[in-house]
């Protein structure tokens, strides 16, 4: 009794059965592939957008406004302190005069500004932090707020929050899609195996009569579900890789116009293997449900 030989035999038998009805097998694999590629494609898209987000998030700025009436030497000291801060990449000093000039130029409020008897703007530093994530930015903001002679710290993080929220929404949508389509994969396998069991009813009955264990009878069906799931996962991987190839070719024209090097990233090897493992597991699960549902009904009489 050699279990390895038996498993190899069943595997060969399973592949033979897949090849026996090439059209039906191909159709099944395509359906599974498409079903899986939808959530996985969504995931790939989200990953790429998230990467884009963190690339941009390197450039958010924190504006630090100095209390009015602070002497220039004190302002300089604050500048030095900011420069030495571990969480800050570089800073830019915007004096109140420069700020006023910018305001005059940029906002069309020239008349109003001209009418002011004195410059109401404070000196300010534009701080470019090192990290990109929201939590670090916010803690840096809160820290700077506590410093002496700093009137106001403004972090423009609203858009980061928006992107995060949007990504969260996208993730949830992908998750729901993945759950639904996983269920569909299980259902497809369940039905395929059900039909197989029905068409092989006689064989199962005879096998039981001549001493086959339940495990022996179950094994080819479980293998079939597993193999079908695995190949379906591979089809999904192929579909996504192909689609990304096409999309990126098109995207490169678009991103050139925007002077960006944004491109959709393909499935990493780890993610791809996880996809294969998961789809194989779902196939096995569908087969297992089907077998436990239908096999006991076939008893020799």
């Amino acid at each position, binding site marked *: *009794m050699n279990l390895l030989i038996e498993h190899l*035999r069943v595997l060969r038998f399973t592949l033979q059965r897949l090849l026996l009805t090439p059209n039906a097998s191909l159709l099944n694999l395509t359906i599974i592939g498409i079903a899986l590629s939808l959530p996985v494609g969504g995931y790939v898209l989200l990953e790429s957008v998230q990467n884009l987000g963190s690339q941009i998030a390197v450039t958010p700025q924190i504006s630090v406004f100095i209390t009015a009436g602070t002497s220039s030497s004190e302002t300089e000291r604050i500048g030095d302190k900011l420069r030495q801060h571990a969480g800050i990449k570089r800073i830019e000093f915007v004096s109140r005069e420069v700020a006023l000039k910018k305001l005059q130029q940029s906002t069309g409020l020239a008349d109003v500004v001209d009418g002011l008897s004195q410059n109401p703007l404070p000196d300010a530093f534009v701080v470019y932090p090192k990290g990109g994530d929201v939590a670090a930015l916010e803690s840096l903001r809160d820290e700077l707020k506590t410093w002496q002679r700093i009137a106001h710290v403004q972090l423009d993080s609203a858009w980061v929050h928006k992107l995060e929220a949007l990504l969260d929404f996208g993730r949830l949508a992908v998750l729901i899609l993945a759950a639904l389509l996983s269920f569909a994969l299980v259902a497809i396998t369940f039905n395929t195996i059900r039909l197989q069991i029905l068409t092989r009813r006689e064989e199962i009955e005879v096998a039981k009569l001549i001493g086959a264990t339940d495990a022996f009878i179950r094994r080819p069906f479980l293998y079939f579900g597993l193999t079908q799931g695995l190949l379906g996962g591979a089809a999904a991987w192929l579909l996504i890789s192909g689609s990304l190839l096409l999309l990126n070719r098109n995207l490169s024209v678009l991103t050139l116009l925007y002077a960006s090097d944004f491109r959709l990233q393909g499935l990493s090897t780890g993610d791809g293997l996880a996809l294969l493992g998961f789809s194989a597991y779902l196939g096995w699960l569908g087969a297992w449900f089907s077998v436990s549902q239908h096999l006991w009904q076939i008893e020799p009489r």
Partner: protein
Amino acid sequence: MIKFNQVYKRYPGGHEALRNLNFDIAEGEMVYLTGHSGAGKSTLLKLVAAIERPSSGGVLVRGQNIRSIKPAAIPALRRNIGLIFQDHKLLFDRNAFDNVMLPLQICGFDHREAAKRVRAALDKVGLLDREKANPIALSGGEQQRLCIARAIVNRPTILLADEPTGNLDTEYSSEIMNIFKSFHQVGVTLLISTHDESILRQFPARALHLKKGELQP
């Protein structure tokens, strides 16, 4: 080898198929089971193969009580019993060779060793030259012999045959009975159900006669 002790078999709805059966079949014995159709011959054979369980009483096969046997223990029991059916129960999606191969696959035999045994079994029933044929292309007598080859390839200690000559003419019948006789000579326990009196005259052996589910003296 096979022992029935006050065995009753009732089906739902009150039909009593077997009534108070008591008999013993020794190891290596050849026994006929006779009676009209509906007398309970098939039911009795099903009890021995654990296809059915007795309603009451004890059925001992190779020391195991069929009434209380665990489902997980049934495959091991059946591997020691060769079953020969009147309707053959051959699989038409594979050739003769693969039909006989099935019991060995179930036991996990090495392929080469199994192939040798399959050919030996086919040779025994005179079908060695038909190993590639689909069972559907075989005659009734050949199908029955193929069924026998499948039953013996595993070298069981008990052979149960349900009307093995039921649909065959006399010439084929004696062919098959000669095969059974050769198994009997090498020590296999045989229980053969038949309603064919001429076989009993030609190949005499002890007979259990069933009538309406009861053993006749």
